[in-house]
């Protein structure tokens, strides 16, 4: 599924609107609450900062391979894709509408560092409402698929939201974690984590590491078409299982096992070696197809 580089349209570099254009069936997107009908963040205006008409998130409906779907796309270039009050309300409203209208899926294009600190409590509340709304949509039988491959990754509260989704489609460029690298370095010191070591950051939070660890359902190329086919592939045959205590216990156990096995390691390289990868050094250079093949060959 590797398109030649010249034919790829980078997901990482695209804006939220361009991602939607490349993801959905051509011409099928209809935006809810268009920019002209929306209003920029009142909190940013109070702080004397310019807002964005759509408050950094585009929501609407459309079709993916003819399936009716809803889509939520965060704009990472606007204040790091951060979640403010209006931004969050648009996401929650779209997820609640999905509970009523039951589209085949909600595609959640996450590109965010988490809460918009300028909006403080309003942003924190928005994140918690998004978490609940994702779980409500899934409980109503609507899968929510996170697509992660933007420059801001999925961090902070949005890292948690990503893991609450039915599954995650990620690219090598995508990153997923709770505390961002700079946050860890600031709080724990550079000896704990050097946020300027970009290769280390990607070995610990990047798409390849997340895929090898089983945190993400699919690893795709940094390409609009690859995310489109990845989302469609994930949804093929996927059915939302209802909440189950047994499933929660088993994932809790898996997390405890993981903590016991890897908590002392400092680098993705050590973790990959422990996973059974023969040449951990080669992982950062593998293309996505080869990495997928490598994971298939690992002992389980």
């Amino acid at each position, binding site marked *: 599924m590797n398109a030649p580089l010249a034919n790829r349209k980078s997901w990482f570099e695209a804006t939220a609107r361009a991602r939607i254009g490349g993801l959905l069936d051509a011409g099928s997107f209809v935006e809810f609450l268009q920019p*002209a009908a929306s209003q920029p963040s009142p909190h940013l205006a109070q702080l004397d900062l310019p807002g*964005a008409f759509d408050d950094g998130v585009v929501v609407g409906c459309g079709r993916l391979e003819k399936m009716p779907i809803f889509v939520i796309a965060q704009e990472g270039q606007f204040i790091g894709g951060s979640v403010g009050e209006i931004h969050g309300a648009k996401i929650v409203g779209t997820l609640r509408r999905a509970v009523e209208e039951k589209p085949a899926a909600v595609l959640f294009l996450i590109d965010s560092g988490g809460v918009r600190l300028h909006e403080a409590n309003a942003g924190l509340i928005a994140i918690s409402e998004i978490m609940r709304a994702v779980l409500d949509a899934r409980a109503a039988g609507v899968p929510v698929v996170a697509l992660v491959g933007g420059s801001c990754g999925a961090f902070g509260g949005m890292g948690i939201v990503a893991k609450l989704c039915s599954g995650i489609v990620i690219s090598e460029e995508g990153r997923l974690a709770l505390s961002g690298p700079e946050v860890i370095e600031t709080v724990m010191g550079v000896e704990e984590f050097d946020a300027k070591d970009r290769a280390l950051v990607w070995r610990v939070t990047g798409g390849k590491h997340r895929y090898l660890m089983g945190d993400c359902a699919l690893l795709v190329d940094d390409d609009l078409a690859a995310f489109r086919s990845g989302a469609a592939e994930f949804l093929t045959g996927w059915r939302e299982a209802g909440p189950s205590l047994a499933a929660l216990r088993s994932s809790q156990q898996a997390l405890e096992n993981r903590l016991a096995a890897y908590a002392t390691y400092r680098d993705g390289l050590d973790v990959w070696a422990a996973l059974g990868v023969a040449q951990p050094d080669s992982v950062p250079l593998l293309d996505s197809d080869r990495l997928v093949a490598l994971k298939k060959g690992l002992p389980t």
Partner: protein
Amino acid sequence: METLEFRFASHPAGPAADPALCGVVGSGNLEILIRAGDDPAACQLSIKTSARGFGDTWRAVLGDFAAAHAAGGTTVAINDMGATPAVVTLRLAQALAEYQGGAQ
């Protein structure tokens, strides 16, 4: 932040795909929303910019735009995060092309 308002005479714009949005409020970038206005012979612009004290530069760049393009009958709203005049000129032309039903 500084809020600026301008009005320039301009030839009427062609048939419109109202409204048109272009660009992103990111570092060194801006977003432009063009809607239909009241006066077909004038282009009305309002700007919110993070960079203070560049009113004269905005007036020059936007005046050139209104003179060079048929942008009459439009209301243009801009959110700016420190875009350079060259980027502003490029985005304005791009936004107007989309407003007139042009290429993506």
